[in-house]
């Protein structure tokens, strides 16, 4: 009888391994499947390339135009990253202020909501008037569109410190800044990283909007030029490159998150954390 146990445990481990492998492969399978269905649909219904180009055609266009795609993608990545970093700095500072002071919250929140409701595409022309077409309007649009989720999440993390914990520290004579440093900020980190995942993707939206309106480089600009020449496969190539950059940056955010705030997702399908000490 006892001999059976290790065997079944082995079988269980093997099943778990298979499952994990499937989980890792699944995103790629889904993406591949989507392109296959797309390709098949375009061929089956004989859709014209200037309406919906087949993935094979887009790939061809990518190979053909790899150099402009790469330089423009680099420009977009640069503006997005700069805008995103500004959003992190500003969002963290404002989030801490709003989360730790009811007065700041009451005073600033309505303005923030109003500000966030303004379509950023309407702001771009103003930025162009101020800074001229090109780098800065794209950076600032990425910044403007991506700081809001960071502010809201950091503020939430800091404002929801358990009252008992606050009492323990206050009773010891802790100043508000001590409470923020020892409890508020570490506690807000999971919220902060959750917001980064949203912010980085919308930052791309921001910079590309700006590039589409007024710029002489960047993926948005490239897509605008391509569509004016009815080069629809190249427009789609630009979209796909943008998607890839978004996923890559998202992955960076997730990796940093896992390294720094593993305590917040303990035991969720991570055996290293569940048994570690």
């Amino acid at each position, binding site marked *: 009888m006892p001999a059976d146990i290790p065997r079944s445990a082995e079988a269980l481990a093997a099943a778990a391994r298979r499952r994990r492998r499937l989980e890792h492969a699944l995103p790629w399978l889904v993406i591949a499947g989507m392109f296959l269905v797309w390709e098949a649909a375009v061929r089956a219904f004989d859709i014209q390339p200037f309406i919906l180009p087949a993935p094979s055609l887009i790939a061809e266009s990518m190979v053909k135009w790899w150099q402009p795609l790469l330089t423009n993608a680099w420009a977009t990545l640069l503006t997005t990253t700069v805008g995103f970093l500004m959003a992190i700095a500003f969002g963290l500072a404002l989030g801490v202020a709003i989360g730790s002071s009811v007065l700041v919250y009451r005073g600033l929140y309505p303005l923030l909501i109003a500000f966030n409701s303004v379509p950023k595409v309407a702001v771009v022309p103003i930025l162009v008037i101020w800074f001229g077409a090109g780098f800065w309007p794209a950076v600032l649009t990425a910044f403007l569109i991506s700081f809001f989720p960071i502010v809201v999440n950091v503020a939430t993390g800091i404002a929801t410190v358990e009252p008992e914990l606050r009492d323990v520290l206050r009773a*010891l004579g802790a100043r508000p800044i001590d409470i923020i440093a020892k409890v508020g900020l570490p506690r807000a980190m999971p919220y902060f990283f959750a917001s980064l995942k949203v912010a980085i993707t919308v930052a791309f939206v921001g910079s590309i909007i700006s590039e589409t309106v007024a710029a002489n480089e960047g993926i948005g600009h490239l897509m605008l030029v391509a569509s004016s020449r009815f080069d629809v496969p190249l427009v789609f190539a630009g979209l796909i490159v943008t998607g890839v950059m978004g996923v890559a940056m998202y992955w960076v955010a997730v990796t940093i998150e896992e390294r720094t705030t593993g305590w917040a997702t303990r035991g969720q399908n991570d055996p290293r954390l569940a048994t570690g000490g």
Partner: protein
Amino acid sequence: MTALPSPFVQIDGVAMRYGGVEGTLALRGASLDVGEGEFIAVVGPSGCGKSTLMRLVTGLWPPTEGTVIVAGKEVSGPLSIAGMAFQNPTLLPWRNILDNVMLPLEVVQPHRRQLRSQRGHYEHKARELLKLVGLAGFEAKFPWQLSGGMQQRASLCRALVHDPRLLMLDEPFGALDVFTREDLWDVLQDVWMARKPTVILVTHDLKEAVYLSDRVLIMSSRPGRIIAERTVPYPRRRSLDLTYTAEFQDIVHELRDRISDARKAEAPDAR
């Protein structure tokens, strides 16, 4: 029990109202004295303002009326000579147990100044404390790797690490199962005997109150005040067998009756 000329904690005619003039009156005319090194338990019907009393004594909130004097000084702000523990252990999930216990040292003077230069000394102290409550070997674990009872032990250590002269416990064992709770009673008893802090234990468990304290104070329904007290005669160290003796049960019953009376008498004009 020590018979000092002036009590360590002196609460005199204290009233506490939340939320302005029309707010809830949590306490009215509450008065009590606690001697230095005394262990008192405060019991009462739920919502009688026991936790409010704690927050007043530690200076977290100022009273609406009356005075609170601790260690000869009127309380006007947070007291760093107090340690607190609550029903919820409130450990920080990103810190291991040792770092959690050492948190007050990063806040309270003079430890805060000395922590960096004398880290070894303080760490040793925290480890000794963890050993005292039976958590030796768990220093590097994180709170979520510990059971509720173990987390509460760590929370107790955190309340004690800066050698507070006053220990405020707000239903610290309320969320634990009976066996764990009884274990922790003895842990608390040992800690008290080893360090003799003044303890104010707020609880709704009468057995716990009688087993642990020198004196049990009974509060009325809201607005709360102290309506009766009962001295507990047993010498320490007490053993759990004591709780099964007839005399002990009688004390518990007596307290129970007084609380039911309090609830009946005070219910109609609660506001």
